[in-house]
């Protein structure tokens, strides 16, 4: 792994539970779900003023912890990117919300909730955002079939 930027080195200093990786030249930190919020706070005060994106991956039957939540942070001041990743279990996946730190995480977390059913604690309005409110299931989970929606046709009038 190449030399870490001093800002990142300071940020990772003293972190025990986290694993820092180099993913194709990008810095990735893998955290315990309980450290999610505290690390985000530390990152924000270290200069990561933008939360670019929050997303998730479903590793169904491929990894012991089914879900991965990914947050992309950006520091305009230092021209740095940082990716936070945490793994969540299959049953009742939930993690702290980043909205109190970055209001811009609002829509992204709602999308993750909508698509994966992962709950964000402390989110001000955790509702479905892309799918209809009465939708059943979470489409981007791997066990959600493609084309599983019956197309609704009305019976046409009989022509004699």
């Amino acid at each position: 792994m190449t030399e870490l930027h001093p800002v990142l080195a300071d940020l990772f200093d003293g972190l025990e539970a986290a694993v820092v990786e180099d993913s194709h030249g990008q810095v990735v930190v893998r955290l315990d779900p309980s450290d999610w919020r505290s690390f985000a706070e530390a990152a924000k005060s270290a200069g990561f003023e933008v939360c670019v994106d929050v997303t998730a991956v479903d590793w169904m039957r491929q990894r012991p912890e089914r879900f991965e939540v990914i947050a992309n942070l950006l520091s305009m001041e230092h021209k740095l990117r940082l990716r936070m990743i945490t793994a969540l279990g299959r049953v009742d996946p939930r993690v702290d919300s980043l909205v109190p730190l970055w209001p811009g995480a609002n829509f992204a977390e709602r999308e993750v909730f909508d698509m994966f059913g992962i709950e964000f604690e402390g989110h001000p309005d955790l509702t479905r955002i892309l799918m209809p409110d009465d939708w059943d299931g979470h489409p981007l989970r791997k066990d959600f079939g493609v084309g599983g929606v019956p197309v609704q046709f009305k019976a046409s009038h009989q022509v004699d």
Partner: protein
Amino acid sequence: MNEERDDAQETTDTIDIWIAGTEETQFSPTDEGAQEISDHESDSRLDEQFGRVVTDDYLFDDEVSDDERMIVNMGPQHPSTHGVLRLQIELEGEIIRRTKPIIGYLHTGMEKTAEQLTFGQGPTNVTRMDYLAPLHCELAYSLAVERLLGVEVPERAKAIRVLMTELNRVASHLVALATNGMDIGAVSMMIYGFRERESILAFFEKTTGLRMNHNYIRPGGVAADLPAGWKDDVGDILENLPGRIQQYDDLLQNNPIWLSRTKGVGVISGDEATAFGITGPALRAAGVDWDLRRAFPYSGIEQYEFDVPVGEHGDVYDRYRVRVDEIHESLKIVEQVMDSMPKGDYRVDDRKVTPPPRARIDESMEALIHHFKLFTEGFKVPPGETYVAIESPRGELGCYLVSDGQAKPYRMHTRAPSFANLQALPIAMGDSLMADTVATIASMDPVMGDVDR
């Protein structure tokens, strides 16, 4: 309850016996003078009354009763909400107090679709996301696939990509100007903007075969080399566009209606913009000098000279200004690319990623096998994950790609700039006039295909 009814009964009784002139009126006489704007009104107060200055200091006022509040549904089928955007707006008279954007009407599950398509088929899918900047979507996806593959594309392919995406930026900004003009009432801008965009789309059609949804930039390079005589076509665009855009700019610059409808309207400050993850022209108009082409250059864009236009006030006018300036800067890049177009191959010479030339298939068994494998199974990408972001006309367009070693992405997520930018609407519109809504929406330039994916 009973007491209330008794009161009501009493009032009715009173009215029954009311005779004109015998009772005191309950209303104070109207003060006619109070409805005029007095001349000694301060300039800042006048600015607020005219909506030129918008203060984002909304406090929930308990003294205003629910009767004076009204919730208005705007959209999804409204011509000026740029697609199927729906807004729930809480009004207090003419003033917007709260706004809630409601999206999802154009959701087509493209991220799920991407998991069913091979890496080679992927661009056909992502190009339909942001339909005004399809080449940027393809570029972000292709760069992500190439980073996972560890493939470096030839110089010519990089230059073609920069040429096409910068032309695409011009085309997209022209639509933004056109629709922004139409929404505010400068209907001729609609015609002008679309007319100039047409010249760029004609070049795209000649090069890629399609006006939109090109599937031109693919992992490993581009789909085809530039057509014969491309320098003449690009030269024509470079010759005609700057003068015309200057004309339209003059048309609007000195138009008092345009100025009063855009200046001080829909203000987003720099701090708000970074907090809400707003990128692109909306961020730069707020005075933040941030362009991914500068900060994290991609596809060799760092070798060309260009300026990053930055606004000051973060209002509708500055966003318009930044877009016009960006058109000129993009044309500058296009000119440099045209003059310095490197010779060579337009795609990587790696038969595991790009198909062999048609003529080779007749001669070589191996070429035939490669061709067959690429178009039936596709190429496999080593396991890994990466995030690639480029500067689309609307801001940071990112592609988060996860591969598990198969020929299809395990997960493809697009960080859509319009999706994040829409979050700022409640701030930009808070405490402003209802009539400024369309101006603010148009200046954020959301593309609903990008928002909902």
